[in-house]
């Protein structure tokens, strides 16, 4: 009924369950509990599948094993896991002296090597056929090993790449460096695809070298530290210029200094040394005075600041129930562009709007004013 593989998984499930209960009752951290519960459920799931399909079953139909003859005569294979286990113990001890992180690494290493050890010894005793045993082991273990290994591998690659990218002196050097690396990879790939007879070990060698170079590069760059990255100044200290009220301050702290110009906007309002004017994109004509914008429509207005002083662009709306009295951009630096999406709910000839001074586009600290006519 229960195969050795199922027993292994069931055992693991039970231990995980016990661990979960103990942890939950004695320690009670949320993340830890969730993690352990997930582990238990996952193990139970795999164990259940294994029992129901019995696909990893060998012993049940292996005449040799059940007769107890051949299984005992198989000598165990060489194994790296006892060594790894020992190293892990040493690392833990070392960690106790040096740093807590090393302890955690040691514990993880110990768990992994212990589990692998367990798996290996189980699979070697599973039947009298070594190749069959290997297959059974991989079938059972790959479902866990492969996703974990892939995640770790990808993580390492991403991390190493990011370290290298952040370590290269300038942005443009990064671009050049990666163009070169990309070309080498492409060239290498082309060469490999040309030579049909490339043996597996050689391929493995090439990829190992590439991997070592990448990880080594990542490690070196990581230790060297990141390049100087220009600090991102927030504009919160300009809040006194703000006519929008204090609630805008948090927006200022996270505001991007320049947004990409949006295509086909309704209008582009520009402040330069001559004053405030606007252009209708596509029609090259400086306009001042008033602008006509549709009602109840999302009007995208770009503001471009061509003066030396950071400025805040403001759309004056009316005191209408349910809508804000004004909309503001964050502070726009010299040459910066920001976008306001303005929705006018009522026409500008509405008495309420007229009483509150009408719709307008203004810049804080500048007297010029563009009246907005909303038909």
């Amino acid at each position, binding site marked *: 009924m229960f195969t050795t593989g199922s027993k292994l998984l069931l055992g693991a499930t039970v231990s995980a369950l016990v661990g979960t209960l103990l942890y939950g009752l004695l320690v009670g951290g949320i993340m830890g509990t969730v993690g352990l519960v997930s582990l238990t459920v996952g193990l139970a*799931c*795999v164990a259940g*599948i*294994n*029992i*129901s*399909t*019995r*696909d*990893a*079953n060998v012993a049940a*139909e292996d*005449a*040799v094993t059940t007769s107890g003859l*051949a299984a005992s005569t198989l000598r165990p294979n060489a194994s790296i896991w006892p060594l790894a286990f020992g190293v892990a113990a040493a690392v833990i001890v070392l960690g106790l002296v040096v740093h807590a992180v090393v302890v955690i690494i040691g514990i993880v290493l110990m768990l992994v090597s212990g589990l692998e050890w367990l798996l290996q010894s189980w699979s070697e005793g599973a039947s*009298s*056929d070594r190749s*069959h045993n290997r*297959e059974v082991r991989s*079938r*059972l273990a*790959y*479902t866990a090993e492969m996703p974990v290994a892939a995640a770790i591998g990808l993580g390492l690659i991403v991390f190493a790449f990011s370290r290298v990218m952040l370590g290269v002196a300038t942005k443009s050097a990064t671009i050049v460096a990666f163009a070169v690396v990309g070309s080498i990879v492409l060239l290498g790939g082309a060469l490999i695809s040309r030579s049909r007879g490339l043996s597996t070990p050689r391929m493995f060698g090439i990829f190992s070298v590439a991997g070592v170079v990448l990880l080594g590069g990542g490690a070196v760059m990581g230790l060297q530290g990141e390049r100087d990255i220009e600090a991102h100044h927030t504009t919160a200290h300009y809040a006194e210029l703000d006519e929008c009220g204090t609630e805008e301050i948090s927006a200022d702290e996270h505001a991007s200094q320049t947004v990409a110009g*949006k*295509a*086909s906007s309704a209008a582009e309002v520009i402040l330069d040394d001559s004053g405030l004017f606007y252009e209708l994109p596509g029609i090259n004509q400086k306009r001042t005075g008033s602008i006509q914008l549709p009602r109840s429509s*999302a009007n*995208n207005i770009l503001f471009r600041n061509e003066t030396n002083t950071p400025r805040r662009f403001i759309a004056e709306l009316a005191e209408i129930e349910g809508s804000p009295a004004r909309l503001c951009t964050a502070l726009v630096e010299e040459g910066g562009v920001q*976008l306001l*999406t303005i*929705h006018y709910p009522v026409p500008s000839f509405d008495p309420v709007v007229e009483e509150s001074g009408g719709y307008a586009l203004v810049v804080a600290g500048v007297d010029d004013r563009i009246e907005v006519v909303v038909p």
Partner: protein
Amino acid sequence: MAIIERPSEEVALAPSSVPEVATPSTSYGIFRRPVETTGWKSWLFTIDHKKLGIMYGVVAMFFFIVGGIEALLIRLQLAGPNGTVLSADKYNQMFTMHATTMVFLFVMPMAAAFANYFVPLQIGARDVAFPRINAFGFWAFCFGGIFLNTSWFLGGAADGGWFMYAPNSSVAFSPSNGVDFWGLGLQITGIASLTGAINLIVTVINMRAPGMSLMKMPIFTWMVVVVQFLLLFAMPVITVALFMLMFQRSFDATFFSVEAGADPLLWQHLFWIFGHPEVYIIVLPSFGIVSEILPVFSKKPLFGYPLVVFSGAAIGFVGWGVWAHHMFASGLGPISVAAFSVATMAIAIPTGVKIVNWTMTMWGGKIKFTVPMLYAVGVIVQFTIGGLSGVTHSVAPSDTQQTDTYYIVAHFHYVIFGGAVLGLFAGFYYWWPKMFGKMLSERLGRWNFWLTIIGMNLTFGPMHVVGLQGQPRRMYVWTENRAGEGFFNIGFWNLVASIGSFVLALGVLTFLINVVISHRKGTAKAPLDPWDARSLEWITTSPPKEHNFDRIPTVGHLDEFFHRKYEDRGSGDHHEFHQVATGEEVVANEEAHAESHIHLPSPSYWPILLALSLPIMGYGIIFNLFLLFGGAVLALVSLYGWGLEPHTAGDDEFDPPTGAALEVAAHG
């Protein structure tokens, strides 16, 4: 790799002309592994590329009929002014689902049916590289298609057009669940396409018969490979777009909300970056089929084979740089429009190359006009019309007059029906004896062909007229006020188109009748090589055995089968081909040298179960998140079950059992 050759030394049995195909034993686990080779279970759990190919074909044909009925309803509604057959709402659902069904549930899977069935046969392989993934792909397509169509009964189908432009696809404008079904359904069928693409690419790259270099590969296989690469890169784009749509609708994201600063044109770009390569995904397999058929019935090799291959690949590449020609009226700005306009013209060149090479293949040939040949010639003629009308709207200013009118509808129906669908029908007639060992009736086939050709020209031809007369697409009614008078009267031509659509339906019906008649009991078995064919898939029995080839053929020529049958007895520049063997003799020779002990991958429950979890998750997202959780559990269980299951059952699970004694002997 999935095909495992069992080491035969230890268990050498008496050599026989029929190789022994081991099947798994029945005593296996609590769940038995599926072992049936006949009956419904053998189809449900099969991972045989031929059975899957046939199932692809059957399901796609079913959806062809569904999509066809939708089309007939549309034509009924538009037959006269102010039609009342359908309400505006139902009409919008109808044209959305007609396009979606025809593109995603008929043409693509029907091409997949041929690709699945014939690519391994054409390259001399025993199966595809990943047979279980292949099965999963089919079931994902099947369940995805069913899922999509259940929306009819659950509050209405999608009503935003197959292009589903934002923001019209958002909840405020399309409050029923139709668009959700559409997005998730396409997501599921997209998974099928993606897995199929990877599978076929690996198969063709790794599993070709000895001697078959890429430039000796049959042209159909070539076109399929190009299509799979297109799928591989196009599907992720639509996947991203569909996820955005799902998050927009189900979880209040603002990817396309203008008030939140979004730009609705983002969707159009994403959709058409997928959507334009999709056009070539649809049409290239049929080009492959036509390129197979023309040489066979002209008794000449394909004219300029390398050029046809490279033009196919060129279409595949340039096809990525023309998507914005669907958006000439979208307000992209003159520079983009001009650039995409020129790129679109450029793609006409490789397409033209194909037409010319087909024509030149027939030129000077010894042509037999059988039904498959008629269809192939039909493709050349009809597709040329579609291609040329395509050139007229590659001219962007001209396109701003034609886009979104019936002229475009006419254009792409000539391309898709005239190019892709006629090509598929050519494939049916050509390969039917190979797939089923029965000939389809030539007489009925001719009826089928002429009804289809007349029907399609009556249906889609007048659309050129009404389009140029200014009738826009996607209108549930048209009005007398805008119809005009005289020869170009919109009303008259709409009526003609509606009548034509029923002629066309009659043509398709003839095909179905042909199938039924040909498969009646007592009809003669088809000869082994009815067409005097040229490529590898004919060097085996009809229908092929489960393991395809008794001996994997060694390839020396582009048209291997032809060169095994005919010998050049000329000298120097003078060629003289003489028949030295019949197809039967060639196949018999292969059988005489059969390989022994072929292990085929075993059937499995998991692909269908995993595929089943996808629509469950889909319903979960639409109706209840708990259902999503249930579907996810099923997916997880299936994935692990799949992972734990050996792709081929072990030696001792086969029937006849090789027995413990042999094992002991083997292991000493």
